[in-house]
């Protein structure tokens, strides 16, 4: 068993779809929080296969989209310095700052490298002792253990030339921000499966109780997504909001304790600015003071960052599921992946980009 193809089985997909069709009696608005889930839904065409009563809205679960413009500008500034090797996950390279992106920094002579893992960035630091190696540590809770481990690894190697530019954000505060908003339409949540594989889902009980909303921990393959949707619809139809786990092969209620310990050792809570949404207090992680020598923001003086966002962009409302991309007057006209005005069009996992890539055709037909 490879644990992937089995969960893409077309026949089993039909089974769950039939069950969903038989179960749903009322219209429901369900949000999937994770960009990877949005991508999978659009890639497999799952949203088209669901009954019309179910409306899927897409949440701000794309760390690339929500990394603040200010931090992107800081990254570009650091990456432009002559003695720096700037390492990053691939998808951050496309994100435009106020002026240019990491690709244009590379074109101008900056040393920018794509890595698959932050631990690879540590190896680069080890191999280049005369250079400053900086890793762009973005991510939700899923990526935090790897980023934390990279700091601990660099420390154990006695490296003096490794630092990380941290842009960690956490899910529960974002859920509170969305559900607590007066314009909230979301009635059920698909929680991010891999975030929960690290953090568990015990944190979600209080959210579920506070807002009276079912939350189902969901995976990423077609069967997992449909199963998560089915369980959410069942809870909604029964009027019994609670937290359930539809990704039990990977997720347990307590989560991964050693991974959580790693995170707590290296990071502490902080406020974060979410691009497109705004300031959410205590919604992120930063390095603890004892690890400040690994903090790129402290290591490199970065001043005079003048950020400039578009005024037309409604990314914020899209990220909270209040509006759909095609409801934005700029979508497909002034704002395209070529010329993105905001966060959600920038990232390939962003909702607007996903709609632009996969669903534009039916939208054109629908709106002509």
């Amino acid at each position: 068993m490879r644990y992937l193809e089995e969960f893409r089985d077309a026949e089993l997909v039909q089974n769950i779809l039939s069950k969903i069709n038989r179960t749903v009696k009322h219209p429901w608005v369900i949000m999937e929080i994770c960009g990877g889930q949005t991508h999978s839904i659009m890639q497999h065409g799952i949203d088209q296969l669901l009954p019309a009563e179910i409306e899927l809205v897409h949440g701000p679960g794309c760390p690339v989209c929500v990394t603040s413009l200010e931090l992107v500008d800081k990254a570009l500034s650091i990456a432009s310095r002559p003695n720096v090797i700037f390492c990053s996950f691939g998808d951050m390279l496309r994100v435009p700052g106020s002026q240019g992106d990491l690709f244009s920094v590379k074109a101008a002579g900056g040393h920018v490298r794509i890595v698959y893992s932050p631990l690879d960035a540590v190896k680069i630091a080890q191999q280049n002792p005369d250079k400053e190696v900086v890793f762009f540590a973005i991510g939700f809770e899923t990526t935090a253990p790897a980023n934390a481990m990279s700091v601990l690894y660099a420390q154990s190697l006695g490296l003096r030339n490794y630092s990380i530019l941290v842009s960690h954000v956490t899910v529960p505060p974002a859920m509170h921000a969305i559900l607590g908003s007066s314009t909230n339409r979301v009635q059920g949540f698909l929680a991010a499966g891999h975030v929960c594989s690290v953090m568990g889902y015990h944190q979600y009980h209080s959210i579920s109780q506070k807002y009276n909303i079912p939350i189902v921990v969901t995976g990423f393959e077609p069967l997992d997504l449909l199963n998560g949707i089915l369980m959410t619809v069942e809870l909604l139809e029964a009027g019994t909001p609670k937290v359930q786990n539809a990704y039990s092969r990977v997720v347990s209620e307590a989560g991964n304790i050693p991974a959580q310990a790693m995170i707590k050792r290296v990071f502490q809570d902080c406020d974060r600015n979410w691009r497109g949404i705004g300031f959410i207090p205590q919604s992120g992680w930063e390095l603890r003071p004892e690890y400040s020598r690994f903090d790129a923001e402290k290591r490199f003086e970065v001043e005079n960052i003048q950020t400039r966002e578009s005024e037309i962009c409604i990314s914020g409302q899209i990220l909270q599921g209040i509006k759909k991309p095609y409801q934005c007057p700029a979508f497909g006209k002034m704002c395209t992946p070529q010329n993105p005005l905001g966060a959600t069009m920038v990232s390939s996992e962003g909702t607007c980009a996903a709609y632009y890539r996969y669903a534009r055709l039916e939208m054109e037909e629908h709106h002509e």
Partner: protein
Amino acid sequence: MNDSPLPIIQGPVCPLPIKTYDRIVIGHGSGGQMTRDLICQYFLPNFSNPSLSEGNDFANIESRPGGRIVVSTDAHIVSPIFFPGGDIGRLAVSGTVNDLSMSGGIPLGLTASFILEEGFAISSLEKIIRSMADTALEAGVPIVAGDTKVVEKGKADGIFISTSGVAWVPDGLQIGGACAQPGDAVLISGTLGDHGIAVLSARGELGLETEIKSDVAPLNHLIQSIIQQTKDIHVLRDPTRGGLATTLNEIAEQSQVGIILQEKGIPVHPIVHSTCDMLGFDPLYVANEGKVIIIVPSDNTDAVLKTLRSQKYGENAAVIGHVEEQPSGRVLLKTGIGGTRLLDVMSGEMLPRIC
């Protein structure tokens, strides 16, 4: 759709805003939308002529009694120079032999010019030259002229090779990107994504170890075997940079037709599948160097498929879709679970994602 002053070939556009770049960036070489925009904005307007405007891999330059002459050119800059399944030399010869073969014609001869970096090992050069000779022999196409230049250290990535070629297309063949018709069947000669993944893992930057080999190969014999079977072939094109999806979009645009693919039928090696899953890549956008898309009237499907499968380099051939009138200029994919999605042109560079 977009009020930018840039000429956009079709709806789908690239996430990297070309107009803010005053320098070439890596995305310009990816074969996707950025490359096309660069060509449309700068090259085409200045070099304009009917042959170039046809937009095929080969150009008709002269008609003679019995047929016509076509030419093609290509440059090769692969890194690493040696990769599992081949090297830059095999790539260079196969590349132009294949481009010429997409006309249905017989390649007659190739030229090869080399830009060598000071300090490049002669033993490596010898290996590459031998590989080119072997590939040319396999294809039955001689390398008849060449040139060599040396640049200072740091000015070239070891070796760059540029090849050109000439082919003869006999009368009776009308094959080109604008010739797809509604009702046609779309076939592929084998598995997708092998070359791109083999080169990526050989680069070593992502720490991957895999047995997958590049599919780089000259396809002229394979193509001739189909032509001997039937001359009624509408389109031949090799899905190189930008992958199957980008190439089919070009054809859909040129022919003003819709192409509908069936995800289930598309052959992908399991290792390519696994690697794409890991990195968040789509095999339909990964480069190939030894595959050909064949679009034929549907009556010919079974015969062409049988011929392909009986030939070297065609063993894994499959029918992957068909052509319809609508949606004109677009490619749709029916997913494995029954959904339908738009298959866009590749934008800039395909990047491993975290999200």
